[in-house]
C-alpha cells in the first residue's frame, strides 16, 4: 500500500477522505483504511492536521 497511516497519531477526522481524488480512503469507526486504488498523489499526506499519513517508499 502506498500511503501508511500511523494509528497512534491519527485523529480520525476524515479530512483525507474528503480530498482524496481517487476515492481510495475510508473512515471506518476510528480507523482510516486506504484502498488498492490509491494513486500515491500525496494530497492527504500534506493536508492531515496531525501528520499521521506517510507516503511509503516502496523502492
Amino acid at each position: 500500500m502506498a500511503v501508511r497511516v500511523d494509528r497512534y497519531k491519527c485523529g480520525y477526522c476524515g479530512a483525507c477522505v474528503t480530498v482524496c481524488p481517487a476515492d481510495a480512503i475510508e473512515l471506518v469507526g476510528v480507523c482510516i483504511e486506504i484502498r488498492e486504488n490509491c494513486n500515491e498523489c500525496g494530497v492527504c499526506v500534506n493536508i492531515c492536521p496531525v501528520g499521521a499519513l506517510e507516503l511509503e517508499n516502496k523502492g
Partner: protein
Amino acid sequence: MREERYDVVVVGAGPGGSTAAKVAAEHGLDVLLIEKNQEIGVPVRCAEGVSKRVENFVSLPKECIATEAAGARIFSPDGTCVELSEKTARGKLAEVGYVLERKLFDKYLARLAADSGVEVRVKTQAISILKDGSSVKGIVVRDVSDDAKIFADVVIAADGVESKIGRMAGLETRIKPADLEVCAQFYMTGIDVEEDFSEFYLGNKIAPGGYAWVFPKGERSANVGVGIEASRSRDGARALDYLKAFVRRKFPEGRVLGQVYGAVPVSGPIKSVADGIILVGDAARQTDPLTGGGILNAMEAGKIAGEVVAEAFERKDFSESSLREYEERCKELNEKLTRMYRARLLVSKFSDKELNRLARSLEGVRFEELNARELLRELIKRNPRLLMSLAKLFP
C-alpha cells in the same frame, strides 16, 4: 442478505440528519436513521458555537448549553480588537450566542427524532447504495450482525464532511484542498478566559487561510482551536503545529483535557439532489465558507429536506426533478453561502498588514449586532478602495 424496507432512510445522526428524519416522520413517513458511530454526538468534531437563531429550530434544554456569550472579539495580527457585543440583549439575534455541549445536543436532536417515531440505529454504517438504473433505491448497511439491504424511496445523505454516500450516487462531492479548512482543537482548562466572549484571531502566522478561536466553556475552560486552509498545510506547518504555537503563547499555564481534529468544507454549495437522493448539511457543503459554522445551516436544510420528501410522497415521484424542489427552497441559504465563499476568497488573501489596517479602520465603532454581514458592510464603508470587489457582494 437480509432485506428491509422504509419510506426514507437517513444516513448520519448529526444535526442535519436528525432534523431531516424528525420532520419526515412528523409527516407520517416510516423513517430509519442510521449512525456509524457507537454513540451519537461522539466523537465531537466541532467548536460548538452557534447563534441564538438555534432557538428557531429547537428549544434547548439547559444541559445542551455550556456557555452563553454576550459577544465576540476579533483580533488582527497586531492585537487590534474589534468587538461585537450584544448590547440590547433581548430581541436581537446574535451570530455567536451559545457554546453548546454537542455530545448532548446531537443526542437531544436524535431523541426528538426518535420521539417522532423515527427508528434509530447506531454503530450502523452505510457501506454502499442500492440502485435501479440511475435511481437510488436504498443502502446496504453493516452493523454488529450481518449486512442488510435497506430499501427506501428516498435516501437522505447527511453523512458529514466526507460525503461518501453522495459520491456513490454520482454527485461530485470531492473537495480540493483550497476549499477545505483543516482544524485542530484542544479543550483546555485552568486558563484565563473571559467567560462571555468568543474570540477569533486572524493572521497568516497564526492560521493561514483561517483563524484561531477561543470559545469559553464554563469557568476557566474553553475550546481553543485553529483552522487553516488545507492547501497551505504541510509538514511542520499543520493545523496541530499552529495550535501548539498559539497555545504556547496564549495559555502556557493551561491543561488539555481533550483533543479534536476535523475538517470543514468551505467550497460553497454543490449539486445536492439526484434520483432518489438528497444531500444535507456538510455533505452538501452547506457550511458558511467565511466562518466555518455549519450546525444551523445543516438543521435548516434538514428541515427543508424532510418537508420536500414528504411532498414527494404525495406526488409519488422521487425523481431528481421532483426532489429539485429542495434546492429551490435552499436557494436563499445557497445564495448567502455563495456570497460568503467569494468573501472568503478575498479575505484569505489579505496580508497581515492589510488585516491590521482593516481592524484599525473600525476603531471606535460599536457593533451591537453580532453579524458577519454587518461587519463586512462597515469594513467596506471604511475601506472602499481595498474592498471594492467585496462591495459588489454586499450592496
